[in-house]
C-alpha cells in the first residue's frame, strides 16, 4: 500500500512539475517579486498533491475495478437473456444499461474535483446568484443525459456527427436566449466534466457495449461518449440559469448590483432577461 502511495505521489508530482516551474519562473524572474503569503501557497500546493494522490489511489484501488466490472456485467449478453436474445435484442431491451449510464454519469460528475473548483469560483463571484451546488447538479444532469444518449447511439449504431452537430445547433440557439452572465460558465463546464473520475468508468461502459452488441466496432463506436459528456452540460447549465433566472427575476431587479464588483449597467440588462 505504501509503495503504491509513493508511486502515485511521484506521478502526481511529475504532472505538477511543469506548472510549478512556469509559476516559479514567472513569479521570480519576470515579475521579480514574492507572492503574498508564500507559506500558505506552498502548504496549499502540498495539500493539492497529497489530496490528488489519495483521491487517485482510492479510485484506482476501489471504485474503478467495481465500476468496470459492473459495466461489463450490465452489457453482458446473459443479463439480456441468452446469446441469441442478445443478437435479436432491440434498442429498448437495454433498459438497465440506460439507467446505469444515467446514474453513473450523474454520480461521477458530482465527485469531479475540477468541477468543484469551477463551481466554487462561480458562486464566489456571482455573490450567490449562481449557487455552487445548483451548478454542479445542473452539470451532472447534463452529463447523465449526454451519456445516456451516447449509449443509445452505440446501441442503434448511428453516426456520431449527427448528434454532435444537432447538439451544437441547440447550444447556439440557447446562447441567444440565455442570460449573458451564465454563457461563459456554461461553456467552461462542458470542458471540466470529463476528467479524473468520469472518463475511466464511462469509457469502460462504451467499450463493453461496443464489444457486446453485434456489428459494432469498439474502435469506432466505443469512443465518443466523452464528446457527448462535454456537450450536454452546456445545454443543462444554460437551461438551469433560465429556470432560476425566471424565478429570481423580481428579486434581482430590486438589487441591481448583487456582486457589487464592477457589475456594469450594460451587463445587468442582460442578466435580467
Amino acid at each position, binding site marked *: 500500500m505504501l509503495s503504491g502511495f509513493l508511486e502515485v505521489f511521484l506521478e502526481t508530482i511529475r504532472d505538477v512539475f*511543469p506548472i510549478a516551474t512556469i509559476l516559479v519562473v514567472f513569479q521570480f524572474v519576470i515579475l521579480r517579486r514574492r*507572492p503574498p503569503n508564500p507559506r500558505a501557497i506552498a502548504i*496549499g500546493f502540498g495539500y493539492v498533491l497529497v*489530496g*490528488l494522490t489519495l483521491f*487517485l489511489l*482510492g479510485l484506482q484501488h476501489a471504485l474503478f475495478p467495481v465500476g468496470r466490472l459492473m459495466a461489463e456485467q450490465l452489457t453482458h449478453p446473459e443479463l439480456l437473456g441468452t446469446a441469441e436474445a442478445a443478437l435479436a435484442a432491440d434498442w429498448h431491451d437495454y433498459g438497465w444499461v440506460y439507467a446505469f449510464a444515467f446514474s453513473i454519469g450523474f454520480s461521477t460528475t458530482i465527485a469531479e474535483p475540477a468541477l468543484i473548483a469551477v463551481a466554487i*469560483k462561480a458562486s464566489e463571484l456571482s455573490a450567490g446568484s449562481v449557487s455552487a451546488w445548483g451548478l454542479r447538479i445542473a452539470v451532472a444532469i447534463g452529463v447523465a443525459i449526454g451519456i445516456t444518449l451516447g449509449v443509445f447511439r452505440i446501441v442503434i449504431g448511428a453516426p456520431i456527427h449527427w448528434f454532435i452537430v444537432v447538439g451544437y445547433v441547440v447550444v447556439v440557439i440557447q446562447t441567444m436566449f440565455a442570460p449573458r452572465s451564465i454563457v461563459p460558465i456554461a461553456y467552461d463546464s462542458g470542458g471540466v466534466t470529463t476528467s479524473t473520475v468520469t472518463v475511466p468508468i464511462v469509457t469502460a461502459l462504451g467499450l463493453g457495449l461496443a464489444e457486446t452488441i453485434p456489428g459494432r466496432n469498439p474502435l469506432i463506436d466505443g469512443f465518443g461518449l466523452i464528446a457527448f459528456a462535454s456537450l450536454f452540460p452546456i445545454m443543462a447549465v444554460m437551461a438551469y440559469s433560465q429556470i432560476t433566472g425566471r424565478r429570481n427575476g423580481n428579486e434581482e431587479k430590486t438589487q441591481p448590483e448583487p456582486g457589487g464588483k*464592477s457589475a456594469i449597467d450594460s451587463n445587468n440588462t442582460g442578466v435580467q432577461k
Partner: protein
Amino acid sequence: MNLLRRVLGRLSESCRDLLPIVFVIAFFQLVVLKQPIPRLAQLLGGLAMVIAGLTFFVRGLEMGLFPIGESMAHSLARKGSLFWLIVFAFSLGFGTTVAEPALIAIADEASGVAAGAGVIANNPDAMENYALGLRLTVALAVGVSLVIGVWRILKGWPIHFLIAGGYLLVVIITALAPREIIGIAYDSGGVTTSTITVPLVAALGVGLASSIKGRNPIVDGFGLIAFASLTPMIFVMIYGMLF
C-alpha cells in the same frame, strides 16, 4: 475545537459528494445484478482515501492554487506588459498539456490506428513520431487557445461569437478531415483540461478580468477552459489532413 469543527465540516462535504456513487454501485450490484459486492473491505478503504483526498484537494485549492493564479494575473496586468502576459498564457497552456498522461495515452492509441489504416508506415519509429507530433499539436492548440482567451478578456469581446465560430469551423473541417482522425480529434478536446490546470486557468481568467477596468469577472473571466477544449479538435483534424 474550531479547527476540528472545520475539518469535520469539510469531511462531511466530501462524503456528500461521494454518496451518489456509493448509492449507484450498491443499487445496481445488489438489486439489478443481484450479486454481493466484491472485495467490500478494499472498496471501503478506497472510499475513505477518496474522501480524504477530496478534502485535502479542496482545501489546497483555496489556500494555494486560487490565490497564486489570481495574484499572478493581477501582477502581470499591473506590470502592463502585453508580451509577458501572452507568453505566460501560452506557456501555461503548452506546458500543462504536453506532459498530460491522458493525452500521451490517446496519442499512442491514435498512432496505432493511423498505422493500421495505412496513413503512416507501420513501424515503431514512424508511430512514435506520429504520436509525438500529435502531442505537440494538441499542446500548441491549448497554448494558442489560452492566448486567444486572454486576448478576448483584454478586448472584452463577447464569448459566443468566438465559440460559435469555432464550432462552425469544427463542423466544416470534420467534413474535410480523414475519417480515422475525427474520433481522436473529438476526444483530444476533452482530455486537455486536467484537475490541476482547471483551477489555475479559472483563477487566471477571473484575476485578469477583475484587475482590468470595465471587465466583469463573471462575464469576462470565465471561458478560457472552453477555448482549451475547442481548439485541439481543430488543430488535430488539420494535423490529420497534413500527414
